[in-house]
């Protein structure tokens, strides 16, 4: 691939009253990647997705998707993309199979082709049994899975998933993650995924952009982003009488950081690979570690470092 699957330059979207929901966003997503667009509610994620999926014109800036300009060649863009918008907007009075059939026609597929692909997709998202039931009877997770199938009926090059797991219980969330990962590996489709869950971006995305108040505040692989703000912390729990000895041995690697009364913690200068060296050093002086805890910096820490605020995701509701 010689061009990026999604490319944006200086996107701005101003709404009535001068509110800048998107304030100069530039990004580039290589083909075949899962790109995580992470930010709290109201950060401008959905507005950007609406611009990239030709639903909303930007006030300024340009964007291409699948090599086509979203403003000048919206029809070509629409042929390349699959879209599952927030809240899975699915007509509750239709059955899953009927909606798949309709979606196929909208994409210009023949009836036969749609039927064949529809059946395969229903199997893949595990909705064969519910295919002929009205969507109104589906659970939240089933709706999202149907939404995913609908977005895939025409085998798109770029898949936009706007908060695909918001409001889902943890099990449904993991099922959906597996689906997304699998289709990315199998079909090579680029996935542009917005989320307010750090864990989701960390789990799925090869590259993450963090957005706050309409601007991208950080951009990179999850590991790069974490490395940028800090090293993993190793915390060793020892018996109280060995605390001083342990502190002495570990101080040779790095200055201990505040920790509990029965443990010593340092940030590993060489990353997680340094655990063995510390353990060996403790062993050499006869200190018995009763517990070891290695904690990687999280994307939450990155968000905190970049914006000075904690990310507050919506409560996860089980329905």
């Amino acid at each position, binding site marked *: 691939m010689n061009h990026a699957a999604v490319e944006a330059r200086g996107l701005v979207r101003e709404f009535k009253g001068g509110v800048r929901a998107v304030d100069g966003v530039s990004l580039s997503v290589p083909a075949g990647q899962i790109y995580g667009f992470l930010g709290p509610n109201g950060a401008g994620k959905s507005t950007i997705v*609406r611009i990239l*999926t*030709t*639903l*909303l*014109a930007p006030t300024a800036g340009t964007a291409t998707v699948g090599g086509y300009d979203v403003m000048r060649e919206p*029809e070509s863009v*629409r*042929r390349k*993309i699959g*879209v599952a*918008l*927030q*809240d899975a*907007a*699915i*007509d509750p*009075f*239709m059955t899953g199979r*009927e909606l798949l*059939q*309709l*979606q196929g*026609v*909208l*994409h*210009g597929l023949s009836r036969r082709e749609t039927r064949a692909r529809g059946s395969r997709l229903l199997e893949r998202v595990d909705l064969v049994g519910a295919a002929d039931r*009205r969507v109104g009877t589906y659970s939240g997770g089933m709706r999202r899975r149907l939404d995913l199938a*609908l977005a895939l009926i025409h085998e798109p090059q770029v898949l936009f998933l706007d908060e695909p797991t918001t409001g889902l219980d943890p099990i449904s969330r993991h099922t959906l993650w597996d689906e997304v990962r699998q289709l990315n590996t199998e079909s090579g489709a680029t996935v542009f995924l917005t989320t307010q869950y750090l864990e989701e971006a960390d789990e799925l995305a090869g590259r993450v952009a963090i957005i706050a108040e309409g601007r991208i505040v950080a951009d990179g692989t999850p590991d790069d982003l974490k490395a940028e703000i800090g090293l993993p912390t190793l915390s060793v729990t020892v018996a109280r009488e060995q605390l001083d000895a342990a502190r002495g041995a570990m101080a040779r690697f790095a200055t201990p950081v505040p920790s509990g009364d029965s443990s010593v913690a340092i940030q590993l200068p060489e990353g997680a690979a340094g655990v063995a060296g510390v353990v060996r050093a403790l062993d050499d002086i006869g200190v018995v570690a009763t517990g070891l805890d290695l904690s990687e910096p999280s994307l939450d820490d990155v968000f905190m470092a970049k914006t000075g605020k904690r990310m507050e995701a919506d409560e996860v509701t089980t329905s």
Partner: protein
Amino acid sequence: MSLALRQTGALSRRALIRTMRVPQAWVPSLFFPLMLMAIFSGSFAQAPDRIPGFPEVAGFLDFIIAGTILQAVLIAGTSGGAAFASDIEGGFFDRLVSSPASRLALVGGRITANIVIGVAFAAFFILVATIFGARISAGVPGLLLVLVFTVFLAAAAGGLGVTLALRSGSAEAAQGAFPLFFALMFFSSAFFPRETMDGWFKTVADINPVSYVVEGMRVPIAGTGDAWDALLGLAIVIGLAAIALLATLRSLDRRLKGDL
């Protein structure tokens, strides 16, 4: 082009399925006109004979069929507009817009569904009226002409409903067409002939284009008026449909550009 037609067909099929599965969406547009037809034809059974100036008709039932069809089509237009608006509210419309489907099909599907519903209802009312003794005076060609009127009438009402939906994006606002439709209908000759009206009411009914549409429709059914009345009514209803469809396309364009 054939793909655009297939897409319009698929979307209108979906609109029809959805309408059928939600009884609230079609029962009122069938029940209220039927009830009014029964009440009026019972209450005013002797009006044609006793009221001076009442056009020559076989019975009040024959006279009121056109008004009944008009009423059903207008109510169906309102429900269609409300359904379209809830597609916008719920995000289903975005799903359609983000697909490469023909832009014309986005609105054409709903309006086509409204036409199908209008024609089905018209046929049903005529059947019921026939069972109760009414006769289409111009026979089968007359029946076909009535259905042609219905097609354009439903296109006009459906187009207006969809226009309001596109402009407001809210099902409640789209329901606002209802009082307007009711005023247009009752301040016209839909239920009584202009010959028996007087004063300001007659002035309003004379200006109201709906009067001419209903009167035109009544020519083949009840044998009132002449070919000129039928042609005038047909021309006006085609004009109304054209205006409504142009308004729909303009509103669609504005919504897609994000001006609304």
